[in-house]
């Protein structure tokens, strides 16, 4: 690096920027949301990963952390919220309930058996509820996934 010049591929620069400024949606469903709040607070501090700006509307968010039990009543709302988010958007399924129904896996008549029934999920974080460290690891996995995306290549080369 000389004279303030940085050489990088445009794709990589874009992905680097996007992965380090994920804006999650302020959205919690159950006890996992308490862990998500702890992760966002000062001790674990999601802001270190550029992911601390919890947006109060889905239209400004690009990450949905589904934290908690998704009941069938809520599943319709979750789908609407996901559809309101602008592309590109990502979903982290946090905790056993959102992953596969959790303790309500067979006899919970009112629980959706995994949020991936209604929205596509990028990262699953297991645990009941997961510790903040687990959510941070899930976030870092998602960041790796985003860093490997080639947005312009997809748009201008592959899909011409």
């Amino acid at each position, binding site marked *: 690096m000389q004279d303030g010049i940085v050489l990088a591929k445009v794709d990589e620069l874009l992905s680097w920027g996007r992965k380090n400024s994920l804006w999650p949606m302020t959205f919690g469903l159950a006890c996992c949301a308490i862990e998500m709040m702890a992760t966002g607070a000062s001790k674990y501090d999601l802001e270190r990963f550029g992911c601390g700006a919890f947006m109060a509307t889905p239209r400004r968010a690009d990450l949905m952390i589904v934290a908690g039990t998704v009941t*069938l*009543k809520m599943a319709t709302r979750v789908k609407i919220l996901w559809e309101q988010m602008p592309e590109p958007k990502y979903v982290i399924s946090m905790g056993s309930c959102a992953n596969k*129904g959790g303790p309500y*896996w*067979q006899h919970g*008549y*009112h629980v959706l*058996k*995994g949020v991936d*029934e209604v929205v596509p999920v990028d990262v699953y974080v297991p645990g009941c509820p997961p510790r903040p460290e687990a959510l941070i690891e899930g976030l870092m996995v998602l960041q790796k996934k985003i860093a490997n995306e080639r947005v312009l290549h997809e748009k201008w080369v592959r899909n011409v």
Partner: protein
Amino acid sequence: MYSELITSINSAVTNANATLVTPGEGEIGDSSVLINPESVLEVMKFLKPLYNALQVISGVDYTEYIEVCYFLAHFDPAAPKDVMIKTRLKDRVAPKLDSICSVYLAANWQERECYDMFGVSFNNHPDHRRILCPDDWEGWPLRKDYKVQEVYRGMKVNPENKMNRDDQLFEDNKQKGNEADLIAWALSKGL
């Protein structure tokens, strides 16, 4: 224990048919007062000055009848007391009761929950809707003969590929009493 209360209910409300229910052999719990379902509202009007708080309305499905229990209490530090009033509904298709919201305001949400879970409708209820399940939900979840619907708004309630077959197999074998099969099966799974 409630003999004085029962006589006063019977003298104040005609057709109340108040009787004492005591726990039978091998049962636990307190004794309670059983009344006629048609006279619920009248009895509650009579009891309001004696018991100032409604704590809970709960339902129980005994398959022959649906029982609705009212837990009343009196919050007087000098003489705290409580009573459990029960009534039994024989009709399982469309059980009906009079709403007591005009007497105890706390009954509003309690009766909605009873309607949501057991399908007991309450006449003259100010806001007669389901409270927890979605409005277009089918069936009454806490009834003994409840079968969950397969699809809700295009979402499968119990998708085949997400059900745990191993647990079901284990239960089936356990009920059949095939212990040798059970052990062989568990070994094959590495459990």
